[in-house]
């Protein structure tokens, strides 16, 4: 039926207000059949809200939606799924304790042509076919908690395939992916396009939008500021549209200077990790004998394909995970297996990888979240009493200093946009004036301006003399910021290279486990 129409989705004059914020302001947006359409905009521009409306999570205050030419009312995700729409969220919604197969079997309305529920065997066969056809890399019997972020995303993609969705919405799908995983996702999306499906793709990365999409719609403060053909636009034009003329003028020009001060001898070691081994949730070794030091006034980068032990390494250093073997010293104090509170008290700040899970308490207010690490220190408390006035004042200060977009400091932090939640965390951690700042993927989900802002902050923390441990999977980010770069692969540090010798190619190869010097596949040593 859909072949008769050229336009798969038309959203017309959509307006959506939350309290006194207009998240979407008369937005008109269309996606053609077989088109990949990118949705761009700064943090809080209203991208997620618009897609939540299309997927039936929210209902628009005004406006109409047409799917394949027919006017529809989508009042819940189920309606959307029936219309062939599927949305994959920034944070996958899966039952962690169930297997992949069970998670899919939980979905409502999967049945055969007769309308009968599929037997587990049939479902398994069907899924196995799809996994093969679309080259997914997941095991149906693995429990979801055992999967990497990219694999969880693939489970969500599998859901879309099972429903035979014709319109696929991806909300910032690449922010958690490594370059290789991203390439895989792009080829998957192109395959969908070839099958005549439409894909809506939300991102903050302009090059990415240009390379994958056919058309790009840019939102700014809830309004459409332009829809362009990807082949006829440029990064500069998109950036101007997104930020606006006045925004651009205010941008500071970032100069990337290579750091010359190579001698670390007269600098103090702040973090010293020696021969560290840590287990993952499954009880198998995740970090295997890692050693490195981070000096004051340097940014030390750890890069690797995610799932190579970075998460566990950071959790061990911050006291969230037990150390199996080895030592961790901060300021030459042994902190191995000490609790997070003690480690914090030594001046360690931590921007965690899992923001929603660890970083914030969604139900509590922005202000309460901003003091999560300092509430037990004066002036925020006097003895056992909280000083709410001081907390609010401090929160308002951070909100303006870090340009957190929120109506006020009293609303639950869970109502902020993804990028603004991240700003809350960054603001809180950096404002601690730490001695050691551990930042895990600090720019994930941030728009260009905010990304630049956070990178500037990392640099100024370094200049202040703070030791920064940056965990990232973005080669450009690491090359721009770090003085030394360690590449992690299968729980080990393959190599530590200084900024001067580092190149994109070298790091890329190391990340896939190939040491260029020896030219040998590192893999083989382990078997």
């Amino acid at each position, binding site marked *: 039926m859909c072949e008769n129409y050229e336009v798969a989705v038309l959203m017309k004059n959509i307006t959506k207000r939350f309290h006194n914020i207009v998240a979407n302001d008369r937005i008109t947006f269309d996606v053609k059949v077989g088109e990949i359409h990118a949705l761009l905009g700064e943090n809080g521009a209203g991208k997620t809200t618009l897609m939540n409306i299309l997927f039936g999570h929210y209902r628009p205050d005004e406006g109409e939606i047409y799917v394949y030419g027919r006017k529809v009312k989508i009042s819940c995700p189920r309606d959307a799924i029936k219309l062939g729409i599927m949305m994959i969220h920034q944070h996958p919604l899966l039952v962690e304790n169930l297997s992949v197969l069970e998670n899919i079997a939980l979905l409502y309305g999967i049945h055969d042509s007769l309308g009968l529920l599929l037997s587990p065997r049939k479902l398994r066969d069907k899924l196995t076919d799809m996994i093969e056809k679309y080259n997914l890399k997941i095991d149906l019997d693995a429990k979801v908690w055992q999967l990497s972020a990219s694999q969880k995303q693939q489970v969500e993609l599998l859901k879309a395939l099972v429903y035979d969705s014709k319109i696929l919405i991806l909300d910032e799908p690449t922010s958690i992916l490594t370059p290789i995983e991203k390439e895989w996702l792009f080829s998957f999306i192109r395959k969908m396009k070839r099958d005549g499906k439409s894909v809506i793709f939300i991102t903050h990365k302009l090059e990415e939008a240009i390379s994958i999409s056919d058309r790009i719609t840019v939102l700014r403060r809830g309004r459409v500021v332009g829809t362009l053909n990807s082949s006829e636009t440029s990064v500069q034009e998109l950036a101007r549209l997104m930020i606006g003329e006045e925004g651009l003028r205010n941008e500071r020009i970032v100069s990337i200077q290579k750091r010359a001060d190579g001698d670390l001898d007269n600098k103090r070691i702040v973090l010293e990790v020696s021969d560290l081994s840590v287990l993952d949730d499954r009880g198998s070794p995740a970090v295997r004998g890692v050693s490195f030091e981070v000096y004051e006034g340097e940014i030390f980068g750890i890069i690797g394909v995610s799932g190579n032990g970075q998460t566990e390494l950071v959790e061990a250093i911050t006291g969230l995970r037990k150390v199996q073997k080895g030592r961790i010293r901060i300021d030459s104090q042994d902190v191995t297996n000490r609790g*997070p509170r003690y480690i914090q008290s030594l001046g360690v700040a931590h921007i*965690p990888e899992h923001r929603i899970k660890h970083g914030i308490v969604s139900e509590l207010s922005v202000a309460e979240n901003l003091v999560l690490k300092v509430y037990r220190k004066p002036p925020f408390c006097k003895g056992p009493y909280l000083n709410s006035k001081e907390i609010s004042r401090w929160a308002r200060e951070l909100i303006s200093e870090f340009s957190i977009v929120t109506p006020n400091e009293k609303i639950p932090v869970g109502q902020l946009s993804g990028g603004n939640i991240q700003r809350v965390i960054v603001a809180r951690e950096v404002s601690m004036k730490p001695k050691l700042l551990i930042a895990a993927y600090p720019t994930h989900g941030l728009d260009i301006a905010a990304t630049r802002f956070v990178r500037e902050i990392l640099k100024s923390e370094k200049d202040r003399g703070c030791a920064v441990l940056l965990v990232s999977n973005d080669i450009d980010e690491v090359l721009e910021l770090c003085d030394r770069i360690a590449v992690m692969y299968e729980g080990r540090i393959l190599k530590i290279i200084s900024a001067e010798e580092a190149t994109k190619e070298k790091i890329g190869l190391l990340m896939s486990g190939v040491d260029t010097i020896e030219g040998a596949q590192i893999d083989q040593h382990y078997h």
Partner: protein
Amino acid sequence: MKVLRSINITIRRREHVPRIFELLIPVCSAVVGLVVCALIFLLQGIDPIYAYSEIYRYSLGGPIQVSNVIRVMIPLILCATGLILVFRAGVWNIGAEGQILIGAIVATGVALFVLQGNTNSALFIFSMITLGFIFGGLWALIPAILKAKLDVNEIITTLMMNYIAAYILQYLVYGPWKGKKTFGFPITDEIPPQAHFPLIPGTLIHIPTLILAICSIVFVFFVMTQTTLGYEIKVFGSNPDAAKYAGISKTKVILITMFISGGLAGVAGAGEIGGVHHRLIYNPWSISANYGFTAIIVAFLARLNPIGIIPAAFLMAILIVGTRALQITFNLPVGVINVFNGSILITMVSMEFFRHYRIVIRRSE
């Protein structure tokens, strides 16, 4: 020509939860509970309107009746304020009933055996209440430690410990503490008169516990809104992972909240001995009188907000007093009040669903 239309029922998630729901949910739950009970009265062949008017007469019909209601509110408030604290921390203490008993046992023991021969009434009252608090709290610490250190499910342990407390009480009244002046009945002797809590003249309301009940509401309100402990309770209760990340001690939150909650229940138990029964009786449940379980309903009716405690406890106390009287006049089964509690709880749980979702019925062409 008429077109056949099918009706389509869908469940939608609410975008905003209207504030009025905070009030609407408890009120609706109470109304549904009353309706369900009316049906039960009907089944028993009793005119529900007559039954409710009788409940009103026995509970609010005169000053004595009202004072009786307030007397019942005291243990309900003491237990429920403590429960708010633990429930906000996401710890499910179902053991207030047993913690009341421990408080009662300790208060009786102190009055009968420890302070024997003393004449100072204030000393009696002070030690009965303080030790009731400490031992009620210590009793609650056992499941708290098991949970904090070994991750043992506290719902099961606190529930089971109610029975342990009841058996200890029975052992004492049948054994070592059996009264010398009770003609062999399995009850203890009456505590000396100087250990009786003073009453508001002309009423049955015991003063020290009434004051403590009101203080406990203020205390919990203050803790939750003004202190770092309250902040830690909120963080731990809503996101234990973030609490760990922030360096908030799980053990500290669980132990402190459980100790206070058990302690307040223990005070309630001491109050029942000093202000009402003046001795332990062979049937433990006639002392704790289901207050520990009813307090769970009170805490939830109050939506875990200390301010809501008084109206919630007032409503439940009216029903307790009223149905006690009904049991006698109409010869109703003891379970009526439980049916009422149960239907309120079920309604509240289902209303919680409507808080987040709504059902939309549409005709589809």
